């Protein structure tokens, strides 16, 4: 498919629409972030965010752009990490003049190679069958890692040392901030490449195959081939993310291609929103942040995570980016102020219901997990006994009243939306 090569016209489109401003801002954000957030933990977290962004965007090449739901994307991520670690060790041993900065390419190549290998079978069909095959492949590779110990290093994995590779500009990548900038540079490059890809004819064909494979076939494209190419490219970028992880942790282990890794990238991508290019970026940042922050605050953070995901699927299937973009035409029409009162009122019942739910979950955790050590607990500095009745009544009331009020306010917001739509219809232009 020769169209794949024509990246330039796509770039022109981005540039002509003031896109350069966005790209410059993005680059500046990457460059300045470590100056704003100096602490070690935030540096570590931002490094993870950069990796998560590449991984989530590569995942969205499948789910959002080509309509393939994968439950095993971590396979290419993990294999990329392993190949990078082994390549780094080989480079160190042979004293080859290769800098660390180039090593993620090895991961990318590994991801690409395995996607070439596994992709042909799995992309024959999309939908449920593809999802099942991806799940089976993930289990297959995951279990094989325990058999092929010489390559995968068994339970403890394979480690490396990133400081022993060739130094460029006196950077030895011992300090986390240097690793951060390496990840940031790769992240920016990958975002640009993946964005450019969506603007090529090939990117459009992916969308066509997602929306209506039959019609794509009628205009002369083989959906299987389009899916295959998208799958392979997605594997490449996942491999790069894996390679960066290997450099970041100086370690590759079996957890990297576990089911939870595949699940996480799905969660992040979907919560961010699959319908817009920037959705997975938001999702990756938010999910990485929550994973690091929530796990400090509560031990059942994964439950909150799952609930958040279900809420997204049920009420906002477009994810965060879908919610944002829904308001773009309204904002352009200058009618955003009409929606604001409703949104402002919505804060109260949502906060109330959320507080009630959190109270229930935390009390249940106290009783279930720590019941043996006593059931007195503290939330926001208020101490109480999780086994006594009043806190449960309070929580139930908060949930009930919050839910009821949310319904009422929801009706108001819906009415406001109707107003806005009617108004934009009479003014013309905005749908």
């Amino acid at each position: 498919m020769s169209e794949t090569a024509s990246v330039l016209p796509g770039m022109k489109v981005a540039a002509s629409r003031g896109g350069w401003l966005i790209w410059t801002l993005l680059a500046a954000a990457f460059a300045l972030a470590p100056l704003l957030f100096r602490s070690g933990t935030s540096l570590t977290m931002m490094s993870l965010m950069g990796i998560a962004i590449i991984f989530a965007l590569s995942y969205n090449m499948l789910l959002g752009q080509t309509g393939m739901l994968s439950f095993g994307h971590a396979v290419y991520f993990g294999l990329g990490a392993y190949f990078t670690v082994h390549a780094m060790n080989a480079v160190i041993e042979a004293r080859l003049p290769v800098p660390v900065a180039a090593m993620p390419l090895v991961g990318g190549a590994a991801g690409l190679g395995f996607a070439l290998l596994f992709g042909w079978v799995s992309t024959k069909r999309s939908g449920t069958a593809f999802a099942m095959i991806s799940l089976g492949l993930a289990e297959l590779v995951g279990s094989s890692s325990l058999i092929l110990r010489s390559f995968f290093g068994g339970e403890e994995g394979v480690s490396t040392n990133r400081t022993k590779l060739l130094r460029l500009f006196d950077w030895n990548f011992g300090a986390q901030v240097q690793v951060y900038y390496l990840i940031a540079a790769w992240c920016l490059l990958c975002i640009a490449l993946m964005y450019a890809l969506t603007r090529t004819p090939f990117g459009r064909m992916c969308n066509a195959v997602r929306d209506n494979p039959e019609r794509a076939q009628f205009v002369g494209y083989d959906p299987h081939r389009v899916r295959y190419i998208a799958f392979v490219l997605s594997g490449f970028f996942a491999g790069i993310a894996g390679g960066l992880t290997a450099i970041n942790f100086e370690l590759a282990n079996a957890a990297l291609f576990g089911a939870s890794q595949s699940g996480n990238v799905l969660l992040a991508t979907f919560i961010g929103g699959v319908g817009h290019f920037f959705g997975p970026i938001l999702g990756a940042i938010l999910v990485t942040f929550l994973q690091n922050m929530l796990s400090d605050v509560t031990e059942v953070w994964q439950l909150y995570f799952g609930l958040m995901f279900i809420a997204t699927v049920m009420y906002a299937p477009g994810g965060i980016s879908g919610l944002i973009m829904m308001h773009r035409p309204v904002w352009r029409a200058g009618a955003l102020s009409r929606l604001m009162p409703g949104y402002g009122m919505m804060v109260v019942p949502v906060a109330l219901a959320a507080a009630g739910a959190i109270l229930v979950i935390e009390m249940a955790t106290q009783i279930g997990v720590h019941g043996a050590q006593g059931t007195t607990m503290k939330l926001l500095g208020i101490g109480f006994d999780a086994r006594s009745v009043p806190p449960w009544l309070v929580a139930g009331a908060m949930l009930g009243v919050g839910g009821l009020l949310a319904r009422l306010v929801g009706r108001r917001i819906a009415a406001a939306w109707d107003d806005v739509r009617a108004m934009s219809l009479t003014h013309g232009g905005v749908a």
Partner: protein
Amino acid sequence: MAELIIISTLNGVLFGLLLFLMASGLTLIFSMMGVLNFAHASFYMMGAFIGFQIAKWAGFWPALILAPLVVGLAGAAVERFGLRTVHAHGHVAELLFTFGLAFVIEEVIQIIWGKSPVDFRVPRALDFPAFTIFSTNYPAYKLFMLAVSISIFVALFWLLKRTRVGMIVQASLTHPKMVAHLGHNVPLVFMSVFGVGSALAGIAGVIAGPALVTQASMAALLGPILFVVVVVGGLGSLQGALIASLLIGLLQTFAVSVNLSLADIFAGSGFTPAPKTILEDLWRVTIAQVAPILPYLLLMIILIFKPTGLFGTRES
């Protein structure tokens, strides 16, 4: 050798029937609603834990009846208040919903019963060896599991093929609109099928709980194999699900009991691979160690050579 074959066959058929108890519900739900229920194994896990709790309070026999009922009601509620809302957003959204649900159920179970296995025991009435062959005691409880699985299997087929309810269900599989036009409440049929499917998984959980380990990771361990079963058997085919369940049950049970590696088989050849290489790993790995990946290998082979599965008619 004969001992190994007989015991493994019994265990394999038992595991296979247990898989079928779950796969049948999954297949029914899939063929009716087009939803591959990711949380199906979670309902099995719920069955085991709720069964454990009821058994603790009231004994095993009430648990055997009540726990599947509770799980079935939970399943029906999930369909009514969750899936039905998501349905408008398409099948991918439905699959994602059940994926999130599986996640949440596992977390909730960990909160209530903790992360370590619970002590779910075989009821005393069945805690004796049923017979002895070749000096191996075969536990009566396993025969009981076999009997329960077979009777449910028979009842399910009878219900589907011989009763009016079964006819409506079968008609809703292929012609939901026509069935609705004839005055049947199709959403109610959907909800009931989802509930019954979940209850079947719940029964599997209650009877498997004491025999296997009742822990919060049991859904994650079994779930993927369940999908292998329904895909290998052919999405939407009950007969296929039965054959595939038995096939995978036998395959895994036999593989686990064979402690042979390539190195053993070709011991006389004098070939030894260089140490610390992938070839050496492959040379020394035993069939028992490969057992966990066999279902997935089977899945790959089937998908390459017969993408519709053994008995399937539709592609997805």
